[in-house]
Structure formats: C-alpha cells, structure tokens
C-alpha cells in the first residue's frame, strides 16, 4: 500500500507533459498505416463492398417509391444472400481496426526499435496514445472516404440528394462506426502489449471478436435461462427475463453497434428495449422519431462504446508502463 502511494507520488511528480512528442508519433504512424499493404487490401475490400451493396440496394430501392428516408435505406438494405452495408461494416471495421493495431507495440520490440525510441525525450504514454490515435485517425479517414463514396453513388443511382436530416443521421452513423472501431483498436493494442508475437496478438483479437459476434448471443440466452427462469408465466417474470437478456447482450460491442446504427438509420425505431403496450399509449405508431430523440436513444450505447475503449486502453497502458524494455 505504501509502495503503491509512493509510486503514485513519483508518477505525478514527473517533469513535463506526458504527451511530449506524441504528435511526432501520430504522424509517423499514420504515414505507415496509410502506405502499408495490409491497409490497401482492406481499403480495397471495403470500397468494393460499399459499391456492391449500395448498387444492389439502389436497384431494390428505385422500385420502392416514395420513402422519406430513401437515402438511409442505401445503407440498411440488403439483397439476399448478401447482408446490407452496415452488416458488412460490422465485421470489416473490427478487421481493419485489428489490422491497424495488432503489432503496434510488439512490432517495436521485434524490430528492436523500442529502446532507441524510448531513449528519446518522450514518455511511454506519448508512444502508446500516439499509436492509438494514429489508428483512430486512419480509421476515421478511411471510413469518411467510403462514406463520401457511398453518398456520391447514392446521388447518382437514386437521382436525388439526401435531405438535411439524412445527412445529419449519416454523420452520426459515421461517428458510431468510428467509435465501434475504437474499441477493437484498443483490444488489438492491448494484445500487442500482452503478446510478443504479432500473429498471436492478431489471433487473440480475432478470437475476442468472434466470441462476441457469434457466441455471446447464445451465452447471453443461456445465462438468462439460468438466472431469470420463467416458472409460472407472470408478466413480471417475462419482463425480467427479457430485460436481463437485453442487458447481457449489450455487453457485446457488436450488439451496441448494431442497435445504435439501426436506431440512427431507421427513424421508425422508437425503442431499443422492451416496449410494453402501456408505454406505447399516446405514441403514434409509424411516425418517425426526430433525430435528437434517436440520438438520445442510443446515447447509452455511444458512451458504453467509449467507456469500454478507455477501460481497455487504460489496462494496456498500465501493462506497458511496467514492461521491461529489453528485447
């Protein structure tokens, strides 16, 4: 305990800003990210997916007549057997984020650049956060580009420009996707600190992603059955079960992403939780929710994504501070 507070005192007594030199790291890493082969592959893949899904969505939509949110449908309409673009993004974004960060720290160890790097007048804080931010900015840059491509394609194929509200919703959507990428970026960064081998770090990150994408739903169902069984069939019992199931499933960032994106791109979604008939009284079914209400609806999701990102990043930060730098 005493040692701990001593450590805290010493850390807080450090000279200068912990972020000295961070922007140098950010620019160097961004340049690396944007010129790397792995990013070109993933970018190409994403652009092709965007073009393909948007084109086929547009084919479907042209016949569907007058929808006030036609533009938003471009992102959410899939044509069997392909999912919609947001569905693709659900796994492309984690993939890009993991590809950006899985060798962030262990790569420096393996190239033996770490001791040269840390003997420059910077703190480890600057190196770690600089790398994370470079990943986030790269992700934001790539996603924004794709976003623009899709909007452009939409104008051409649908023949109408998006309305102001649609643009606002799409910008929120872009933000949520970037935050969703942020969480995977911090997961991959954490593993790049934990594992010496980049391949191990990449596999571990993908395993975590698969776990949440595929297995967590099942586990949440199972846990719900065990923790909140419906014995008699009272309404309260059922409500309790559904609530628990929702809460559990939202531990998964994938669920947070899907919920948030659907609420943003589909203004007709009025609630992301359980809706009891009493709550619907007075609400006019079928009227779209205004944007601020939609954002309010997904506010917990956004803060959840950010909080988890910060938490995982902080864990990596602590581990990295204690790491012996000798390769």
């Amino acid at each position, binding site marked *: 305990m005493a040692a701990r507070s001593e450590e805290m005192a*010493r850390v807080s*007594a*450090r*000279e*200068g800003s912990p972020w*000295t*030199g961070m922007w*140098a*790291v950010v*620019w*160097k890493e961004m340049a*690396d990210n944007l010129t790397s082969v792995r990013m070109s592959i993933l970018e190409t893949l994403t652009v092709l997916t965007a073009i393909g899904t948007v084109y086929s969505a547009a084919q479907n939509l042209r016949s569907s007549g007058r929808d006030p949110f036609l533009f938003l449908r471009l992102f959410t309409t899939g044509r069997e057997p392909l999912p919609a673009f947001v569905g693709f993004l659900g796994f492309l974004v984690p993939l890009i984020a993991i590809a950006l960060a899985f060798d962030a720290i262990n790569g420096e160890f393996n*190239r*033996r*650049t*770490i*001791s*040269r*790097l*840390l*003997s*420059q*007048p*910077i*703190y480890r804080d600057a190196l770690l956060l600089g790398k994370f931010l470079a990943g986030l900015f790269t992700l934001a840059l790539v996603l924004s580009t794709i976003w623009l491509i899709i909007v452009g394609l939409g104008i051409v194929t649908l023949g109408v420009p998006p309305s102001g509200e649609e643009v606002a919703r799409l910008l929120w959507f872009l933000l949520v996707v970037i935050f969703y990428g942020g969480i995977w970026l911090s997961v991959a960064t954490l593993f790049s600190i934990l594992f010496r081998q980049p391949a191990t770090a990449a596999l571990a990150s993908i395993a975590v992603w698969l776990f949440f994408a595929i297995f967590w739903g099942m586990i949440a169902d199972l846990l719900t059955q065990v923790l909140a069984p419906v014995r008699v069939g009272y309404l309260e019992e059922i409500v309790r079960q559904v609530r628990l199931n929702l809460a559990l499933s939202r531990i998964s960032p994938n669920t947070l992403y899907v919920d948030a994106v659907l609420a943003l791109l589909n203004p007709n979604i009025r609630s992301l939780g359980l809706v009891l008939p009493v709550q619907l009284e007075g609400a006019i079914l079928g009227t779209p929710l205004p944007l601020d209400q939609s954002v309010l609806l997904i506010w917990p999701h956004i803060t959840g994504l950010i909080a988890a990102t910060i938490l995982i990043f902080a864990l990596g930060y602590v581990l990295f501070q204690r790491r*012996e*730098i*000798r*390769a």
Partner: protein
Amino acid sequence: MDEIVLETRGLTKRYGDLVAVDHLDLTVRRGEVFGLLGPNGAGKTTTILMLLGLTEPTEGTVRVLGLDPVRQPLSVKARVGYLPEQLGFYENLTARENLIYTAKLNGLRREEAYRRIDEALEKIGLVEAADKPVSTFSRGMRQRLGLADVLIKKPEIIIMDEPTQGLDPGVALEFLEIIRDLKAQEITILLSSHLLHQVQAVCDRVGLFHRGRMVLEGTVEELAQQVLGGAYRIHIEVEKPHHVLEEALRRLDGVVRVEREDTRAYLVEARRDMRAEVARAVHEAGGALLSLDMELPSLDEVYARYFEQQEVNDGSAE
C-alpha cells in the same frame, strides 16, 4: 574537466532473486571515456538502462548531469544519447527518414533537424546511402546509422552498449576514431565492450564488472598494477647473461620480477617506466645491452589474469 556528469551511489537492481547490479558506485567526469568491461551477464546493460531511466533501480541513486533519470527523464534523455546493444530501425524507411523521426521526437524544428541530419550523415560517412531503405543496409551501415541517430540530438553524454561488435576491423577503427573525435569535443562517453584492445585504445578509465559488482576500476595501468603486480614489462637482450647482472636488476627499486626468457633475453616486470634505470643497471653490472623495449600492460592480460585468480579463489573457498 572535473565536473561530475554521471554518478551512482549504491545502485542496485534485482530481478527476483537475481541481483543483476549490486551496490554500484560509479563516477564519470565530463570529457572522459569510460569503459565497462565484464563477462556476459555481469550487469553492464542493466546499469546502462538505469542510467537512462529505462529501467527503475531497486535501490540506490543515479545522477546524470545532476538530474534524476526517474524523475526528470525528459531532460536526461534530451541530453544523453544511447546506442543500444540491440539496434533496430524501421526497415521500410530510408536512413534519412529514420533520422527525421528521431529529430521530431526530440522536438527539433525542421530546418535545424535537416541541418543536423546532413552533418551527422557526413560525419559517419553515410551520405550516399542516406536515401536507401534501411532493409538494404549491412551491419556496419546500421551501426553507423545508429551513431548518426545519437549525434543529431547533440548529446553531452553518449552511452554505447557494445558499439563495435560485429564490425570488421576497418570499420571498428573508424568507430574508435569517431569516439576520439567526440572526446575532443568534450563529450563524455560511456561504452561497454568485450573487445579489450579497443577499450584500451580509447578509454581513459575502465571498470571491470563481475556478477553485478564493479570489482576493479581505474586506468589500464592502475588495473595492471593491481592485478598483474608489475604493470610495465621491459624486455632486454644482453650480450652475456650473468647472475650478477640478474641480481643487479632485481635489486632495483620498483622491479617486481626478473625472468630469463631466452639464452640472452630477460623480462623485467616493473611498477613504473624504468627503461633508463634498467639500461644503467646493465651497464654498471658490466653487461652490454643489445636491445631494450617495453610492452605496455594489456587489458587482455589483466582480464584473463583477474578471472584466473577469481577461479582459484572460488575453488579454494569451496
């Protein structure tokens, strides 16, 4: 010349049960070239990492340019250059791009950075290869680039961990030449090495590490004095070897040992440079001196003898 720039007191580093560095007291003054010697695992690299604040000491204090590397790491690292044992670069970047990154991390402005980079490349002779990717570099070129990387921050102290390992003799000599040059500019240098004749060639003082302790410290002559007894070895050749002559040599104040090397040659081990006295003694004893030359004490010998003695001691202790 006598400002203390590196100082440790009771510096200790433990890894679990293993004591990597054990109560080290080290003092290096401005403009000195200090050599760290010692077998593998003696604690040289660990000491260096603590001097730079890259590893935290378990116990003891470190002062670098009067600063504490744990509390003021930025100031220390801005003024101390480090050439690590395991030297790596970004392979896909060119030599110049690697240096630019270092310059930026040091907060140098662009024009200043470019000027220093050109200067450094010039100095270490890497101008032609400056814009080639590092992946095409040989070991020697990488080591030079490492030195350039250190030079661009214009350090007051340079710490080099085995700077000449894996270099061909020509390049190693160039390296030593650069080190002498830096010394002439009042830059303090601390280097670790296993290549003793090189250490002897450039270092003002050396410290011999053994199991985390600095067991010997001083100039090469001082160490030779301590370990070998007679540090100066004078070889003489006389016309007619004679026991009177031998006795006369032995009686000289400062002579430690006299040994018949050959039919006409003697080896005289002395505590100081006694060439004149030896020549006079031969003459006075009625001998005719054919040749006389003195061998400087060699660090290789000090090193080998020290560890021989150590083994004998260890053996008798058990």
